[in-house]
Structures are given as structure tokens and as C-alpha cells.
């Protein structure tokens, strides 16, 4: 029926356990407004099936083999941004939840949830809601605030750099060595070395790799138009 087709939510279901996957798939298919368009047994398959079928909602087990549910969530959100992703975890795990939120997941629930909870979650994220277990929200916010503080601190350090040192940091983050940085900035390799040393000290890091990571995490590369 046309009206049905218009209101159907197309779902992808990814879980390594065949029995759970098949039973849940049948249970979801029994809901009048849900259609399971694809199933996957690991993370890579989930990403491929999502790209192929463009489901409206993807249910990803957090512990998927070959690319876990959180990474699969990230890849799916990158490739099919309008696909809503729900990460289904074996148990309440704050780190997994925070990672899932960072990956762009629209919902998180555990396997202790009921089938009704899951069906409601699918409908809710499809409507545009974000679903986080109420009992986990406090810890999630605390983690996000802490992360924000750490980023602020890193930004504060980056702000101590001179314009020249910032240029050096960007080139460093792009994988430049002393000679190529010297060439790019038309300075001597010795001067480049000195700049790099100053960058490391000001950022409070011990290696070029760490400095590059700070630059990446704080969007310096984008800011520099690189």
C-alpha cells in the first residue's frame, strides 16, 4: 500500500550472533511501520550494507567483530549522514556511550532494554530525537565538559605560539620534516629546528607526533586553510 510504503522505517540490523540477529529481525519485521532492509554480522559488512541500502535507521551492536559498532557508526554517519544510528551495547558502559556520541550516534541502549524500548527508540531517532539512557546522562555530560576543558587548555597553549610557530606546527602536522619546513618557509633548517623546539615547549609535548596530534585535535589544519 502506498501509505504504508511512505511511513515505513527502513532498518539495518548488525549483530554477530545469528540467533539474536534472526530472531530480532523477525520481531522488528512484525512491527507494521518497520522493515528490516539489511542485516550484517560484522562492522565492515554493516558499513557496506548501509551504503548499499541507505537505511533510515541502523542498529549496531557495540561489540561487532571487524570494526566495532562505534567505528561502524562513525563510518556510516560519514557516508550516509541522514541515516540515524543506534548503538546497542551489552551493558551500560560510559566510555562506549561517549565514543558513540562522538561518532555521531543518535541513540544508545543496552541489551537489557526490552523489545518495546528498542522499537520506540527506532521510531524516536527516526523522528529526529537523540536517545541516551537517563541514568547515564550525568556521567556523559561530565565527560564532555572535561573533554571541553582539555581542548580549551590545548587551545590556550596553541594561542601562545607566534604566527611563525603556528605555520611551523601546521607544516609539522602535515608530515613535513626539518628540510621541507625550512624550504616552505624560506628559512634555514637550523631556524626550522629552533621553531619546532619552541612549539614543543609551548605545547607541553615531547614529540613532533604529539604536537601534530594537538594541531589535528584543535582544528588548526582547517584554520590554516590546509
Amino acid at each position, binding site marked *: 500500500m502506498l501509505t504504508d510504503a511512505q511511513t515505513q522505517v527502513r532498518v539495518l540490523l548488525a549483530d554477530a*550472533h*545469528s540467533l539474536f540477529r534472526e530472531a530480532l529481525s523477525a*520481531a522488528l519485521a512484525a512491527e507494521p511501520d518497520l522493515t528490516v532492509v539489511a542485516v550484517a554480522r560484522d562492522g565492515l559488512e554493516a558499513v557496506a550494507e548501509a551504503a548499499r541500502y541507505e537505511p533510515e535507521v541502523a542498529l549496531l551492536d557495540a561489540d561487532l567483530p571487524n570494526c566495532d559498532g562505534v567505528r561502524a557508526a562513525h563510518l556510516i554517519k560519514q557516508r550516509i549522514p541522514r541515516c540515524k544510528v543506534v548503538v546497542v551495547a551489552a551493558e551500560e558502559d560510559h566510555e562506549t556511550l561517549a565514543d558513540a556520541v562522538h561518532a555521531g550516534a543518535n541513540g544508545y541502549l543496552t*541489551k*537489557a*532494554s526490552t523489545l*518495546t524500548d528498542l522499537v520506540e527508540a527506532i521510531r524516536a531517532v527516526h523522528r529526529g530525537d537523540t536517545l541516551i539512557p537517563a541514568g547515564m546522562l550525568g556521567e556523559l555530560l561530565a565527560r564532555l565538559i572535561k573533554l571541553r576543558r582539555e581542548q580549551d587548555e590545548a587551545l590556550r597553549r596553541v594561542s601562545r605560539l607566534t604566527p611563525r610557530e603556528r605555520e611551523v606546527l601546521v607544516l609539522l602536522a602535515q608530515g613535513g620534516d626539518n628540510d621541507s619546513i625550512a624550504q616552505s618557509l624560506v628559512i634555514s633548517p637550523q631556524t626550522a629546528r629552533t621553531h619546532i623546539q619552541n612549539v614543543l615547549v609551548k605545547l607541553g609535548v615531547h614529540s613532533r607526533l604529539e604536537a601534530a596530534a594537538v594541531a589535528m585535535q584543535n582544528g588548526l589544519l582547517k584554520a590554516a586553510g590546509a
Partner: protein
Amino acid sequence: MVDDHALFTDAMLPVLRGMGMEVLGVARTGGEGLALARREQPDLVMIDLGLPDMTGIALGRAILDELPGTDVLALTGRTDAQAVKEAMAAGFRGYLTKHTPLPKFADRIRAALRGEMVVPSRMPPPRVITRTPEEESATLLAGQLTPREREVLSLLVEGIDNTEIARRLAVSANTVRTHVQSILTKLGVRSRLQAAAFAVRHQVVEVGSGRRPA
């Protein structure tokens, strides 16, 4: 079913009903599972091994001990051989993983209900046991006995009859008959005498160790 993952049990209910089974109840913890089993006395209990309050093996053992007419099956995400061994040693009817495809799951459950031992296909089936040396085979067979069945067996060895065993263990004669039948099946023997002989020959029980109720 005893499993703390409601999502799994909820999804499995229509599947089990579709197979013609009546689901008497679902428990989320070992404690709930034991209470539910006592109340409903089901033919079969499916137990997840990773329960919040006790191991699934311990729950299975407790149920088998109390309810000789009930079979216990592990239904779990765990696939390690050690867990399979523990479950079979505890007297479980079988061990199925959540990796089992649905049609095969249905087959295996039906086999279990017919009285067959059901183990993961990657594991050696129990009949391989007969090809191992006699002593190892006996140990494996005896390992399937529950503590209660061992008690009954030790009384059998003393030549005590069902009525007296029932009195000593403070259970009904019917329960004793079920225990004895289960012992015969597990040891692969046809009579009480053979069971007693098996027990003595392989030192499954110490002669004269039959405990009397305090």
C-alpha cells in the same frame, strides 16, 4: 529462559512459541531463575552463562539438583571449550551458542527435548567418548552426574531400594525413580546393578559413603 538481556529473550519468545513451545517464564538473574524453575517445574530451562548474580553453570547445577525432571541447556554468547566442558560436567542437556542460525537452533532444541545431548558442532560429539580409553570415558560419563545423582548412586551401591533412598534423602519415591533413570542414561547402562558395578569399578562413589540425613 534465564538471561539478563531482555532484548534477546523478547526476540526469542515468538520464535520459541512458533516452535510449539510454551514459555513459562523469563528470569533476569540466577536467583529469579531458580525461583521460577521451582514454581513452574519446566521441561527445559535455557540459561545464559553470564548472569549478574551467579554463573549460569551454578544455576544449572542447582536446578538439576532440585528438579530431576527438568533439563537444562546453556544458551550463551560464550564459545569457549572450557565453558562447554563445565556445562556438560554439571549435567546440562546441551550447550548452544547465540551464533547458531535459527533453523539449526530449532533442530537442536527439538533434539534436546527428545533426550539427545546437544553440543556445538565444532566440539567433538559425546559419542566420540566411547573411542577414548575406558577410564577416561568413565570419568567423562560420571562427570555428568549432579551431586544429588551421586548421592543416589552411592545408595544404590549399598543395595538400598527406592523407598529407602526416598526416605533417606527426604524426597518422593517418584523423584528417586527419575534420578535413577537419569543416572542410567548418563552412565550408558541398562540396570541399577550395572550402574552400581560401574560406580564401584570406576570409583565414582566410595562404598559406604551414602550420607544419611541429619
